[in-house]
Protein backbone atom coordinates (compact mmCIF):
# COMPACT_ATOMS: atom_id res chain seq x y z
CA UNK A 1 0.00 0.00 0.00
CA UNK A 2 1.35 3.42 -0.91
CA UNK A 3 1.93 6.28 1.54
CA UNK A 4 -1.27 7.96 0.48
CA UNK A 5 -3.35 4.86 0.98
CA UNK A 6 -2.54 4.50 4.67
CA UNK A 7 -5.62 4.76 6.90
CA UNK A 8 -4.12 7.63 8.92
CA UNK A 9 -3.61 9.60 5.72
CA UNK A 10 -7.07 8.76 4.44
CA UNK A 11 -8.52 10.03 7.69
CA UNK A 12 -6.45 13.21 7.46
CA UNK A 13 -7.60 13.73 3.89
CA UNK A 14 -11.19 13.22 4.98
CA UNK A 15 -10.92 15.87 7.68
CA UNK A 16 -9.31 18.30 5.23
CA UNK A 17 -12.02 17.68 2.64
CA UNK A 18 -14.68 18.31 5.27
CA UNK A 19 -12.94 21.55 6.23
CA UNK A 20 -12.55 22.57 2.61
CA UNK A 21 -16.15 21.93 1.56
CA UNK A 22 -18.15 23.00 4.60
CA UNK A 23 -19.00 26.55 3.39
CA UNK A 24 -20.31 25.02 0.16
CA UNK A 25 -22.04 21.93 1.50
CA UNK A 26 -23.35 23.08 4.88
CA UNK A 27 -25.66 25.86 3.59
CA UNK A 28 -27.00 23.48 0.95
CA UNK A 29 -27.93 21.07 3.75
CA UNK A 30 -29.39 23.96 5.72
CA UNK A 31 -26.73 23.52 8.38
CA UNK A 32 -24.91 26.86 8.01
CA UNK A 33 -24.22 26.67 11.71
CA UNK A 34 -21.36 24.28 10.93
CA UNK A 35 -19.41 26.95 9.09
CA UNK A 36 -18.73 28.75 12.35
CA UNK A 37 -18.20 25.51 14.23
CA UNK A 38 -15.61 24.20 11.81
CA UNK A 39 -13.91 27.58 11.55
CA UNK A 40 -13.48 27.34 15.31
CA UNK A 41 -12.14 23.78 14.97
CA UNK A 42 -9.56 24.95 12.44
CA UNK A 43 -8.34 27.73 14.73
CA UNK A 44 -7.78 25.17 17.44
CA UNK A 45 -6.06 23.11 14.78
CA UNK A 46 -3.58 25.92 14.14
CA UNK A 47 -2.95 26.29 17.86
CA UNK A 48 -2.45 22.52 18.19
CA UNK A 49 -0.07 22.46 15.22
CA UNK A 50 1.97 25.18 16.90
CA UNK A 51 2.07 23.28 20.18
CA UNK A 52 3.08 20.10 18.37
CA UNK A 53 6.08 21.93 16.99
CA UNK A 54 7.61 22.28 20.44
CA UNK A 55 5.91 19.38 22.23
CA UNK A 56 5.87 16.70 19.54
CA UNK A 57 9.09 17.55 17.78
CA UNK A 58 10.95 19.33 20.55
CA UNK A 59 9.82 17.39 23.62
CA UNK A 60 8.83 20.59 25.42
CA UNK A 61 5.57 19.99 27.24
CA UNK A 62 4.25 23.51 27.60
CA UNK A 63 1.24 23.65 29.86
CA UNK A 64 0.67 27.29 29.10
CA UNK A 65 0.41 27.35 25.37
CA UNK A 66 -3.13 28.76 25.21
CA UNK A 67 -1.74 31.99 26.60
CA UNK A 68 -0.58 32.87 23.08
CA UNK A 69 -4.11 32.40 21.80
CA UNK A 70 -5.14 34.96 24.39
CA UNK A 71 -2.31 37.35 23.61
CA UNK A 72 -2.97 37.24 19.88
CA UNK A 73 -6.67 37.78 20.46
CA UNK A 74 -6.32 40.49 23.11
CA UNK A 75 -3.88 42.43 20.96
CA UNK A 76 -6.54 42.61 18.26
CA UNK A 77 -9.29 43.32 20.81
CA UNK A 78 -7.44 46.07 22.65
CA UNK A 79 -6.29 47.76 19.46
CA UNK A 80 -9.84 47.68 18.12
CA UNK A 81 -11.09 49.06 21.44
CA UNK A 82 -8.79 52.04 20.93
CA UNK A 83 -9.95 52.47 17.36
CA UNK A 84 -7.04 50.80 15.59
CA UNK A 85 -8.69 48.36 13.22
CA UNK A 86 -6.18 48.05 10.38
CA UNK A 87 -5.05 44.48 9.95
CA UNK A 88 -1.70 45.80 8.75
CA UNK A 89 -1.10 47.12 12.25
CA UNK A 90 -3.10 44.62 14.29
CA UNK A 91 -1.74 41.41 12.84
CA UNK A 92 1.99 42.12 12.91
CA UNK A 93 1.57 43.47 16.43
CA UNK A 94 -0.43 40.44 17.56
CA UNK A 95 2.22 38.11 16.16
CA UNK A 96 5.05 40.28 17.49
CA UNK A 97 3.68 40.52 21.01
CA UNK A 98 3.04 36.77 21.08
CA UNK A 99 6.62 36.19 19.98
CA UNK A 100 7.99 38.62 22.53
CA UNK A 101 6.09 37.03 25.40
CA UNK A 102 7.20 33.60 24.17
CA UNK A 103 10.79 34.87 24.14
CA UNK A 104 10.60 36.00 27.75
CA UNK A 105 8.64 32.98 28.99
CA UNK A 106 10.83 30.61 27.02
CA UNK A 107 14.03 32.18 28.29
CA UNK A 108 12.82 31.56 31.83
CA UNK A 109 11.15 28.16 31.49
CA UNK A 110 13.74 26.53 29.22
CA UNK A 111 16.27 26.70 32.02
CA UNK A 112 14.30 23.93 33.67
CA UNK A 113 13.35 20.42 32.62
CA UNK A 114 10.59 17.88 33.03
CA UNK A 115 7.94 18.60 35.63
CA UNK A 116 9.51 21.95 36.45
CA UNK A 117 9.19 23.06 32.87
CA UNK A 118 5.53 22.06 32.84
CA UNK A 119 4.88 23.92 36.11
CA UNK A 120 6.72 27.09 35.09
CA UNK A 121 5.00 27.36 31.71
CA UNK A 122 1.71 26.95 33.55
CA UNK A 123 2.58 29.55 36.18
CA UNK A 124 3.75 32.12 33.64
CA UNK A 125 0.62 31.65 31.56
CA UNK A 126 -1.54 32.05 34.64
CA UNK A 127 0.11 35.43 35.27
CA UNK A 128 -1.19 36.70 31.95
CA UNK A 129 -4.54 35.07 32.60
CA UNK A 130 -4.91 36.93 35.88
CA UNK A 131 -3.71 40.11 34.25
CA UNK A 132 -6.57 39.84 31.76
CA UNK A 133 -9.04 39.04 34.54
CA UNK A 134 -8.01 42.15 36.42
CA UNK A 135 -8.02 44.43 33.38
CA UNK A 136 -11.30 46.20 34.13
CA UNK A 137 -10.92 48.56 31.24
CA UNK A 138 -11.01 45.61 28.87
CA UNK A 139 -13.91 43.82 30.45
CA UNK A 140 -12.19 41.68 33.11
CA UNK A 141 -13.89 38.29 33.43
CA UNK A 142 -16.67 39.26 31.08
CA UNK A 143 -14.35 39.76 28.16
CA UNK A 144 -14.23 42.39 25.51
CA UNK A 145 -16.49 42.69 22.50
CA UNK A 146 -14.82 43.69 19.28
CA UNK A 147 -16.97 46.09 17.32
CA UNK A 148 -15.07 45.98 14.05
CA UNK A 149 -13.10 43.13 12.50
CA UNK A 150 -9.57 43.66 11.22
CA UNK A 151 -9.67 45.77 8.08
CA UNK A 152 -7.42 45.27 5.12
CA UNK A 153 -8.39 48.48 3.36
CA UNK A 154 -9.26 46.76 0.12
CA UNK A 155 -12.69 46.23 -1.36
CA UNK A 156 -12.29 42.64 -2.45
CA UNK A 157 -11.24 41.20 0.90
CA UNK A 158 -13.31 41.60 4.04
CA UNK A 159 -13.47 39.36 7.08
CA UNK A 160 -17.07 40.44 7.53
CA UNK A 161 -17.85 38.05 4.74
CA UNK A 162 -18.39 34.69 6.39
CA UNK A 163 -16.91 32.66 3.56
CA UNK A 164 -13.85 34.89 3.29
CA UNK A 165 -13.35 34.58 7.05
CA UNK A 166 -13.67 30.81 6.82
CA UNK A 167 -11.25 30.31 3.98
CA UNK A 168 -8.75 32.73 5.48
CA UNK A 169 -8.64 30.47 8.50
CA UNK A 170 -8.44 27.40 6.27
CA UNK A 171 -5.45 28.84 4.42
CA UNK A 172 -3.71 29.66 7.68
CA UNK A 173 -4.31 26.11 8.86
CA UNK A 174 -2.71 24.66 5.76
CA UNK A 175 0.11 27.19 6.00
CA UNK A 176 0.80 26.26 9.61
CA UNK A 177 1.19 22.61 8.62
CA UNK A 178 3.34 23.54 5.63
CA UNK A 179 5.61 25.73 7.75
CA UNK A 180 5.89 22.97 10.35
CA UNK A 181 6.83 20.51 7.64
CA UNK A 182 9.61 22.75 6.33
CA UNK A 183 10.87 23.59 9.81
CA UNK A 184 10.90 20.03 11.06
CA UNK A 185 12.94 18.77 8.13
CA UNK A 186 15.39 21.67 8.02
CA UNK A 187 18.69 21.88 9.84
CA UNK A 188 16.94 23.74 12.59
CA UNK A 189 14.28 21.06 12.95
CA UNK A 190 16.87 18.31 12.92
CA UNK A 191 18.59 19.88 15.93
CA UNK A 192 15.22 20.21 17.64
CA UNK A 193 14.28 16.57 17.07
CA UNK A 194 17.71 15.35 18.06
CA UNK A 195 17.65 17.41 21.25
CA UNK A 196 14.31 15.87 22.12
CA UNK A 197 15.67 12.36 21.97
CA UNK A 198 19.11 13.03 23.48
CA UNK A 199 20.00 16.52 24.57
CA UNK A 200 23.43 15.77 26.02
CA UNK A 201 24.49 14.00 22.85
CA UNK A 202 23.60 17.07 20.81
CA UNK A 203 25.71 19.15 23.18
CA UNK A 204 28.59 16.77 22.78
CA UNK A 205 28.65 17.11 19.02
CA UNK A 206 29.08 20.83 19.50
CA UNK A 207 25.58 22.29 19.51
CA UNK A 208 24.27 24.29 22.45
CA UNK A 209 20.60 23.37 22.36
CA UNK A 210 19.15 26.17 24.46
CA UNK A 211 18.95 28.81 21.75
CA UNK A 212 17.39 26.38 19.30
CA UNK A 213 14.73 25.42 21.80
CA UNK A 214 14.13 29.07 22.58
CA UNK A 215 13.74 29.86 18.89
CA UNK A 216 11.29 26.99 18.46
CA UNK A 217 9.38 28.23 21.49
CA UNK A 218 9.11 31.70 19.96
CA UNK A 219 8.02 30.38 16.55
CA UNK A 220 5.35 28.24 18.20
CA UNK A 221 4.20 31.23 20.25
CA UNK A 222 3.85 33.39 17.17
CA UNK A 223 2.00 30.67 15.28
CA UNK A 224 -0.40 30.30 18.18
CA UNK A 225 -0.73 34.08 18.27
CA UNK A 226 -2.04 33.87 14.71
CA UNK A 227 -4.67 31.40 15.88
CA UNK A 228 -5.56 33.94 18.55
CA UNK A 229 -5.94 36.88 16.20
CA UNK A 230 -8.10 34.75 13.93
CA UNK A 231 -10.24 33.70 16.85
CA UNK A 232 -10.75 37.32 17.92
CA UNK A 233 -11.96 38.08 14.41
CA UNK A 234 -14.16 35.03 14.13
CA UNK A 235 -15.91 35.54 17.47
CA UNK A 236 -15.67 39.34 17.58
CA UNK A 237 -14.98 38.74 21.21
CA UNK A 238 -12.09 38.00 23.52
CA UNK A 239 -12.13 36.82 27.12
CA UNK A 240 -9.70 35.50 29.72
CA UNK A 241 -11.26 32.07 29.32
CA UNK A 242 -9.44 31.68 25.98
CA UNK A 243 -6.17 31.36 27.84
CA UNK A 244 -7.13 29.60 31.03
CA UNK A 245 -5.11 26.54 31.89
CA UNK A 246 -8.04 24.35 30.81
CA UNK A 247 -7.49 25.52 27.26
CA UNK A 248 -3.78 24.74 27.51
CA UNK A 249 -4.60 21.28 28.77
CA UNK A 250 -7.07 20.74 25.94
CA UNK A 251 -4.43 21.72 23.43
CA UNK A 252 -2.11 19.08 24.84
CA UNK A 253 -4.91 16.53 24.54
CA UNK A 254 -5.61 17.47 20.95
CA UNK A 255 -1.98 16.95 20.04
CA UNK A 256 -1.71 13.65 21.91
CA UNK A 257 -5.05 12.48 20.53
CA UNK A 258 -4.09 13.18 16.94
CA UNK A 259 -0.58 11.85 17.25
CA UNK A 260 2.43 13.73 18.53
CA UNK A 261 5.19 14.52 16.08
CA UNK A 262 3.04 13.83 13.06
CA UNK A 263 2.40 16.76 10.77
CA UNK A 264 -1.38 16.52 10.51
CA UNK A 265 -1.95 14.77 13.84
CA UNK A 266 -2.81 17.99 15.68
CA UNK A 267 -5.35 18.89 12.99
CA UNK A 268 -7.19 15.58 13.18
CA UNK A 269 -6.71 15.60 16.94
CA UNK A 270 -8.39 18.99 17.25
CA UNK A 271 -11.17 17.84 14.94
CA UNK A 272 -11.91 14.63 16.84
CA UNK A 273 -11.54 16.26 20.25
CA UNK A 274 -13.91 19.11 19.47
CA UNK A 275 -16.33 16.97 17.49
CA UNK A 276 -16.62 14.48 20.32
CA UNK A 277 -17.13 17.17 22.91
CA UNK A 278 -19.84 18.74 20.73
CA UNK A 279 -21.61 15.43 20.26
CA UNK A 280 -21.29 14.34 23.87
CA UNK A 281 -22.36 17.74 25.14
CA UNK A 282 -25.48 17.38 22.97
CA UNK A 283 -26.30 14.01 24.53
CA UNK A 284 -25.92 14.75 28.20
CA UNK A 285 -24.88 17.58 30.48
CA UNK A 286 -22.64 15.12 32.27
CA UNK A 287 -20.57 14.60 29.13
CA UNK A 288 -17.32 15.23 30.95
CA UNK A 289 -17.86 11.97 32.81
CA UNK A 290 -17.64 10.12 29.49
CA UNK A 291 -15.09 12.35 27.83
CA UNK A 292 -12.53 12.28 30.66
CA UNK A 293 -12.17 8.50 30.81
CA UNK A 294 -12.18 8.35 27.02
CA UNK A 295 -9.15 10.62 26.89
CA UNK A 296 -7.42 8.58 29.56
CA UNK A 297 -8.01 5.42 27.53
CA UNK A 298 -6.63 7.04 24.40
CA UNK A 299 -3.47 8.02 26.22
CA UNK A 300 -3.04 4.54 27.70
CA UNK A 301 -4.03 2.34 24.77
CA UNK A 302 -3.50 4.41 21.69
CA UNK A 303 0.10 5.49 21.99
CA UNK A 304 0.75 7.72 19.04
CA UNK A 305 -2.87 8.86 19.00
CA UNK A 306 -5.16 8.43 16.03
CA UNK A 307 -2.26 8.47 13.61
CA UNK A 308 -0.48 5.76 15.59
CA UNK A 309 -3.62 3.68 15.99
CA UNK A 310 -4.46 3.73 12.30
CA UNK A 311 -0.87 3.08 11.29
CA UNK A 312 -0.55 0.05 13.55
CA UNK A 313 -3.82 -1.36 12.23
CA UNK A 314 -2.53 -0.97 8.72
CA UNK A 315 0.80 -2.60 9.49
CA UNK A 316 -0.92 -5.61 10.99
CA UNK A 317 -3.05 -6.20 7.90
Amino acid sequence: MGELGKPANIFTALVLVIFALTPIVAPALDESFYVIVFARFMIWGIAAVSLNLIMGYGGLISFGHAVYLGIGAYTVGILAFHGVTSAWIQWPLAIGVSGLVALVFGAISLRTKGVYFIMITLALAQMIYFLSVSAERYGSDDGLSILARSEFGVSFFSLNDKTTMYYTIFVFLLASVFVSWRLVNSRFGTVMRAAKSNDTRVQSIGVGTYRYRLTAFVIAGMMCGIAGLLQANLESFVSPDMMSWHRSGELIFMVVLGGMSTLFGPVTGAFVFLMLSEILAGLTIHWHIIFGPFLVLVVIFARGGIAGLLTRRADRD
Partner: protein
Amino acid sequence: MTDALEAQGLIKAFGGLTATDNLSLSVAPGEIHAVIGPNGAGKTTLVNLLSGMMRPDAGRILFNGGDITRMAAPARVKAGLARSYQITSIFRDFTVLENVMLSVQARQGHSFRFWKPVSRDTSLMDPARELLAQVGLGDRVDMRAGDLAYGEQRQLEIAISLATEPSFLLLDEPMAGMGPEESQKMIAFLRALKGDYTMLLIEHDMDAVFVLADRITVLVYGKVIASGAPEEIRNDPAVREAYLGDDDTEHENGEGPADA
Protein backbone atom coordinates in the same frame (compact mmCIF):
# COMPACT_ATOMS: atom_id res chain seq x y z
CA MET B 1 55.89 20.68 22.59
CA THR B 2 52.77 21.61 24.56
CA ASP B 3 50.56 18.74 25.58
CA ALA B 4 47.39 18.21 23.60
CA LEU B 5 45.49 17.84 26.83
CA GLU B 6 46.48 18.42 30.40
CA ALA B 7 44.48 17.95 33.57
CA GLN B 8 45.86 19.57 36.71
CA GLY B 9 44.62 18.60 40.15
CA LEU B 10 41.04 17.83 39.13
CA ILE B 11 38.62 17.21 41.97
CA LYS B 12 35.01 16.20 41.63
CA ALA B 13 32.87 15.04 44.54
CA PHE B 14 29.32 13.69 44.55
CA GLY B 15 28.13 14.33 48.08
CA GLY B 16 30.59 12.49 50.27
CA LEU B 17 32.06 10.47 47.42
CA THR B 18 35.16 11.86 45.75
CA ALA B 19 34.94 10.45 42.24
CA THR B 20 37.92 12.40 40.97
CA ASP B 21 40.57 12.96 43.62
CA ASN B 22 43.27 15.47 42.78
CA LEU B 23 43.82 13.92 39.38
CA SER B 24 46.54 15.11 37.03
CA LEU B 25 47.48 13.67 33.68
CA SER B 26 48.72 14.83 30.33
CA VAL B 27 48.36 13.55 26.78
CA ALA B 28 51.00 14.35 24.17
CA PRO B 29 49.89 15.13 20.61
CA GLY B 30 49.35 12.05 18.48
CA GLU B 31 49.54 9.53 21.29
CA ILE B 32 46.96 7.17 22.67
CA HIS B 33 46.78 7.56 26.38
CA ALA B 34 44.76 4.86 28.06
CA VAL B 35 43.05 5.23 31.40
CA ILE B 36 42.22 1.99 33.12
CA GLY B 37 40.74 1.17 36.47
CA PRO B 38 38.07 -0.96 38.09
CA ASN B 39 34.37 -0.12 37.87
CA GLY B 40 33.54 2.99 39.83
CA ALA B 41 37.12 4.25 39.67
CA GLY B 42 35.92 7.54 38.19
CA LYS B 43 36.82 6.99 34.55
CA THR B 44 33.54 8.22 33.11
CA THR B 45 33.53 11.11 35.53
CA LEU B 46 36.94 12.08 34.18
CA VAL B 47 35.56 12.05 30.63
CA ASN B 48 32.62 14.16 31.77
CA LEU B 49 35.00 16.69 33.30
CA LEU B 50 37.26 16.85 30.28
CA SER B 51 34.39 17.11 27.82
CA GLY B 52 32.63 19.81 29.81
CA MET B 53 29.53 17.80 30.71
CA MET B 54 30.49 18.34 34.36
CA ARG B 55 32.36 21.10 36.16
CA PRO B 56 35.27 20.17 38.43
CA ASP B 57 35.18 21.42 42.03
CA ALA B 58 38.84 22.32 41.68
CA GLY B 59 41.66 21.99 39.18
CA ARG B 60 42.38 23.10 35.65
CA ILE B 61 42.06 21.65 32.18
CA LEU B 62 44.32 22.80 29.36
CA PHE B 63 43.62 21.93 25.74
CA ASN B 64 46.45 22.65 23.29
CA GLY B 65 47.84 24.98 25.94
CA GLY B 66 44.63 26.99 26.43
CA ASP B 67 42.57 26.92 29.62
CA ILE B 68 39.18 25.31 28.90
CA THR B 69 38.14 24.66 32.49
CA ARG B 70 35.14 26.99 32.23
CA MET B 71 34.37 26.39 28.57
CA ALA B 72 30.93 24.92 27.83
CA ALA B 73 30.72 21.46 26.29
CA PRO B 74 29.68 22.54 22.76
CA ALA B 75 32.51 25.06 22.56
CA ARG B 76 35.03 22.36 23.45
CA VAL B 77 33.77 20.26 20.57
CA LYS B 78 34.15 23.22 18.26
CA ALA B 79 37.72 23.54 19.52
CA GLY B 80 38.37 19.96 18.43
CA LEU B 81 37.72 17.90 21.54
CA ALA B 82 35.13 15.20 20.86
CA ARG B 83 33.91 12.38 23.07
CA SER B 84 32.08 9.10 22.75
CA TYR B 85 29.94 7.40 25.34
CA GLN B 86 30.30 4.19 27.27
CA ILE B 87 26.53 3.74 27.12
CA THR B 88 25.68 3.96 23.43
CA SER B 89 24.34 7.40 22.82
CA ILE B 90 23.08 7.56 19.28
CA PHE B 91 19.83 9.00 17.89
CA ARG B 92 17.95 5.74 17.67
CA ASP B 93 15.02 6.98 15.62
CA PHE B 94 17.22 8.71 13.07
CA THR B 95 18.73 6.75 10.23
CA VAL B 96 22.42 5.95 10.40
CA LEU B 97 23.05 8.63 7.80
CA GLU B 98 21.03 11.24 9.68
CA ASN B 99 23.02 10.53 12.83
CA VAL B 100 26.25 11.45 11.12
CA MET B 101 24.72 14.27 9.08
CA LEU B 102 23.82 16.01 12.32
CA SER B 103 27.47 16.09 13.32
CA VAL B 104 28.47 17.37 9.89
CA GLN B 105 25.81 20.04 10.26
CA ALA B 106 27.14 20.99 13.69
CA ARG B 107 30.65 21.29 12.33
CA GLN B 108 29.54 23.55 9.49
CA GLY B 109 28.40 26.26 11.89
CA HIS B 110 25.07 27.33 13.28
CA SER B 111 21.88 25.48 12.42
CA PHE B 112 19.57 28.47 12.13
CA ARG B 113 18.47 27.37 8.71
CA PHE B 114 14.77 26.90 8.70
CA TRP B 115 13.59 26.04 5.23
CA LYS B 116 15.73 23.68 3.19
CA PRO B 117 15.17 19.98 3.91
CA VAL B 118 18.37 18.28 5.10
CA SER B 119 17.44 15.26 3.00
CA ARG B 120 18.22 17.30 -0.10
CA ASP B 121 21.36 18.89 1.29
CA THR B 122 24.32 17.24 -0.41
CA SER B 123 26.77 19.33 1.61
CA LEU B 124 25.60 17.28 4.59
CA MET B 125 24.93 13.94 2.97
CA ASP B 126 28.12 13.53 0.97
CA PRO B 127 30.60 13.93 3.83
CA ALA B 128 28.37 11.78 6.05
CA ARG B 129 28.23 8.97 3.49
CA GLU B 130 31.96 9.17 3.00
CA LEU B 131 32.67 8.86 6.69
CA LEU B 132 30.24 5.98 7.10
CA ALA B 133 31.92 4.14 4.27
CA GLN B 134 35.25 4.65 6.03
CA VAL B 135 34.05 3.23 9.33
CA GLY B 136 32.49 0.24 7.59
CA LEU B 137 28.86 1.22 7.85
CA GLY B 138 28.54 2.13 4.19
CA ASP B 139 25.79 -0.40 3.54
CA ARG B 140 23.81 0.59 6.60
CA VAL B 141 23.21 4.28 5.86
CA ASP B 142 19.44 4.10 5.48
CA MET B 143 18.80 1.82 8.41
CA ARG B 144 17.21 3.13 11.58
CA ALA B 145 20.12 3.51 13.98
CA GLY B 146 18.30 1.71 16.76
CA ASP B 147 17.96 -1.36 14.53
CA LEU B 148 21.70 -1.80 14.00
CA ALA B 149 23.48 -4.72 15.61
CA TYR B 150 25.08 -3.75 18.91
CA GLY B 151 28.61 -3.72 17.54
CA GLU B 152 27.53 -1.51 14.67
CA GLN B 153 25.86 0.87 17.08
CA ARG B 154 29.19 1.20 18.87
CA GLN B 155 30.86 2.00 15.55
CA LEU B 156 28.21 4.60 14.81
CA GLU B 157 28.77 6.06 18.26
CA ILE B 158 32.35 6.79 17.29
CA ALA B 159 31.47 7.86 13.75
CA ILE B 160 29.18 10.55 15.20
CA SER B 161 32.14 11.91 17.16
CA LEU B 162 34.55 11.62 14.23
CA ALA B 163 32.21 13.60 12.00
CA THR B 164 32.74 16.68 14.15
CA GLU B 165 36.31 16.60 12.79
CA PRO B 166 38.09 16.63 16.13
CA SER B 167 41.80 16.63 16.73
CA PHE B 168 41.29 14.86 20.03
CA LEU B 169 39.05 11.93 20.90
CA LEU B 170 37.86 11.08 24.38
CA LEU B 171 36.70 7.48 24.04
CA ASP B 172 34.78 6.09 26.99
CA GLU B 173 35.09 2.31 26.81
CA PRO B 174 34.52 1.91 23.06
CA MET B 175 34.56 -1.88 23.48
CA ALA B 176 31.97 -1.87 26.26
CA GLY B 177 29.60 -4.81 25.98
CA MET B 178 31.21 -6.22 22.85
CA GLY B 179 32.04 -9.83 22.20
CA PRO B 180 35.66 -10.86 21.47
CA GLU B 181 35.21 -10.74 17.70
CA GLU B 182 33.60 -7.29 17.69
CA SER B 183 36.26 -6.07 20.10
CA GLN B 184 38.98 -7.18 17.73
CA LYS B 185 37.36 -5.23 14.93
CA MET B 186 37.12 -2.15 17.09
CA ILE B 187 40.76 -2.45 18.14
CA ALA B 188 41.79 -2.65 14.50
CA PHE B 189 39.61 0.35 13.77
CA LEU B 190 41.12 2.44 16.56
CA ARG B 191 44.58 1.42 15.51
CA ALA B 192 43.83 2.75 12.04
CA LEU B 193 42.84 6.07 13.57
CA LYS B 194 46.07 6.27 15.51
CA GLY B 195 48.27 9.09 14.30
CA ASP B 196 45.36 11.06 12.86
CA TYR B 197 43.89 11.72 16.26
CA THR B 198 45.17 12.17 19.75
CA MET B 199 43.18 9.91 22.04
CA LEU B 200 42.32 9.44 25.64
CA LEU B 201 41.09 5.87 25.68
CA ILE B 202 39.12 4.70 28.66
CA GLU B 203 39.13 0.95 28.68
CA HIS B 204 38.33 -2.01 30.79
CA ASP B 205 39.78 -4.61 28.47
CA MET B 206 43.45 -5.07 29.37
CA ASP B 207 44.48 -6.72 26.14
CA ALA B 208 43.16 -3.87 24.05
CA VAL B 209 44.92 -1.35 26.23
CA PHE B 210 48.29 -2.96 25.97
CA VAL B 211 47.95 -3.28 22.22
CA LEU B 212 46.89 0.30 21.56
CA ALA B 213 48.25 2.60 24.22
CA ASP B 214 51.47 4.60 24.24
CA ARG B 215 50.89 5.49 27.84
CA ILE B 216 48.65 4.16 30.54
CA THR B 217 47.25 5.80 33.63
CA VAL B 218 45.72 3.64 36.31
CA LEU B 219 42.87 5.07 38.32
CA VAL B 220 41.56 3.67 41.59
CA TYR B 221 38.95 5.46 43.70
CA GLY B 222 39.48 8.61 41.65
CA LYS B 223 43.23 8.68 42.30
CA VAL B 224 46.06 8.05 39.87
CA ILE B 225 48.05 5.17 41.33
CA ALA B 226 50.41 4.76 38.41
CA SER B 227 51.18 6.28 35.05
CA GLY B 228 53.71 5.28 32.45
CA ALA B 229 54.53 3.17 29.42
CA PRO B 230 52.62 -0.14 29.07
CA GLU B 231 55.66 -2.17 30.17
CA GLU B 232 56.07 -0.13 33.35
CA ILE B 233 52.41 -0.48 34.17
CA ARG B 234 52.49 -4.21 33.54
CA ASN B 235 55.29 -4.60 36.03
CA ASP B 236 54.17 -2.06 38.61
CA PRO B 237 53.52 -3.93 41.87
CA ALA B 238 50.92 -1.43 43.10
CA VAL B 239 48.97 -1.80 39.88
CA ARG B 240 49.15 -5.56 39.92
CA GLU B 241 47.79 -5.60 43.40
CA ALA B 242 45.10 -3.00 42.95
CA TYR B 243 43.89 -3.84 39.51
CA LEU B 244 45.57 -6.43 37.37
CA GLY B 245 45.46 -8.90 40.23
CA ASP B 246 41.70 -9.12 40.50
CA ASP B 247 41.30 -8.65 36.76
CA ASP B 248 43.12 -11.95 36.26
CA THR B 249 40.27 -13.82 37.79
CA GLU B 250 37.97 -12.62 35.01
CA HIS B 251 40.43 -13.22 32.19
CA GLU B 252 41.20 -16.67 30.89
CA ASN B 253 44.34 -15.43 29.21
CA GLY B 254 45.35 -13.24 32.16
CA GLU B 255 48.89 -12.53 33.17
CA GLY B 256 50.78 -14.88 35.46
CA PRO B 257 50.65 -14.35 39.23
CA ALA B 258 52.33 -11.34 40.72
CA ASP B 259 55.97 -11.88 41.51
CA ALA B 260 55.90 -9.61 44.52
